[in-house]
């Protein structure tokens, strides 16, 4: 069970039409090497799931500019004008999801739950077409679980079993995305032997991680 693979091997697993979750927040620690590999391979018609679409020249923002994305599911697209342009021209579909709802939808998929009952979005366009469930007299929006074919995440320290530690504000969506995709590849700043990380301080158990590539030197 050697999980360590090359960037080329990772790219071989990413195909046209896949739904892909990307860790990161406003371009801060997207999996830069994996993104560049996807650009180089020219993967098309991606459904991109992430907090945001970064900036035009940074990380996953480049996938938008490069027109490799068919649909975006994100909470914020304002920092990448190209996302708005392609949305307005009808070239690309955009589903805007409140950030907390996005997190819970992904977690619900990972946790085997049927959905999320949240007050967020009630009475707004976010509620359009969705069921409202009443619990003890209060209304909640039923938001459905969100899975992906692939999750491409980043880790600061990753052991050879795939156990991950994140660093500071770059944890964000990575831990929950790791639970909600058929294929999970982590781009590691540093790779260490299994047993080197304190078992109390591992943030994503290695069972969620299929493969590891060495990142860094962005």
């Amino acid at each position, binding site marked *: 069970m050697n999980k360590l693979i090359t960037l080329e091997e990772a790219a071989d697993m990413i195909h046209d039409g896949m739904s892909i979750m990307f860790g990161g*927040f*406003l*371009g*801060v*620690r997207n999996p830069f090497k994996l993104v560049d590999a996807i650009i180089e391979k020219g993967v098309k018609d991606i459904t991109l799931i992430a*907090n*945001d679409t970064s900036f035009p020249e940074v990380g996953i923002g480049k996938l938008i500019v490069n027109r490799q994305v068919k649909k975006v599911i*994100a*909470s*914020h*697209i*304002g*920092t990448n004008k190209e996302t*708005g342009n392609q*949305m*307005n021209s009808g070239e690309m579909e*955009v589903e*805007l999801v*409140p*950030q*907390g*709802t*996005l*997190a*819970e939808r*992904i*977690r619900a998929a990972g946790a085997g739950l049927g959905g999320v009952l*949240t*007050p*967020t*979005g*009630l*009475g*707004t*366009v*976010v509620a359009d077409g969705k069921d409202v469930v009443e619990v003890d007299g209060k209304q909640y929006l039923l938001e459905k679980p969100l899975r992906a074919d692939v999750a491409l995440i980043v880790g*600061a320290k990753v052991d050879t079993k795939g156990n991950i530690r*994140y*660093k*500071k*504000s*770059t*944890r*964000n*969506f*990575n*831990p*929950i995305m790791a639970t909600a995709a058929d294929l999970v590849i982590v781009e590691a700043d540093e790779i260490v032997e299994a047993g080197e990380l304190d078992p109390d301080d591992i*943030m994503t158990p290695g069972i969620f991680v299929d493969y590891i590539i060495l990142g860094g030197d962005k």
Partner: protein
Amino acid sequence: MDANMEKEYIARRVAKELKDGDVVNLGIGLPTMVANYIPEGIEITLQSENGFLGMGPAPAKGEEDSYLVNAGGAFVTLNPGGVFFDSAESFLIIRGGHVDTTVLGALEVDEKGNLANWMVPGKMVPGMGGAMDLVTGAKKVIVAMNHTAKGSHKILKECTLPLTAVNAVDLIITEMGVMEVTEKGIELVEINPEFTVEQVQAATGATLIISENLKPIEV
């Protein structure tokens, strides 16, 4: 007051709303400035929706940490006792009512406490980010903004733009006054002495209730 002075005036007045021990989320822009005017002896904990509590000021030049940015992508620092977590926990904190006060800007607010601040159809669609969760989950929602947009009303009888949340706003603080959203409508409780009640009303698209105890703003 010029635009910068107005912003500082608003931020200073917002800061007075915060109590010792409060957990506070400040939106991008003007709300972020509130952190600069926290009164002496008041300790608050700033939450950043990308995943931490205990946000400190911007780092000195050259000391930026590429692993540590705020929800606007700007470099920040962490105060002693701060803590990092993931997005699910971050919004558990936000949606679960563990944030005492959230301060954010608005395109429109109305007398029902409805808020619109995330899109202008056909023009600007940045997305709601964490705003919908914040105004739904925080115990107290303060809108901090200029009273009008170049003369156009932003405080309205009814919002015209797509909403961020329904019945969510508690307090509106502008360069003209401090307004509480009540069941009867928007009540002007403090006024900038540079303006008259008539001027504030004229700049407002909803009929203001004037507090019997209307006071001058002190910042």
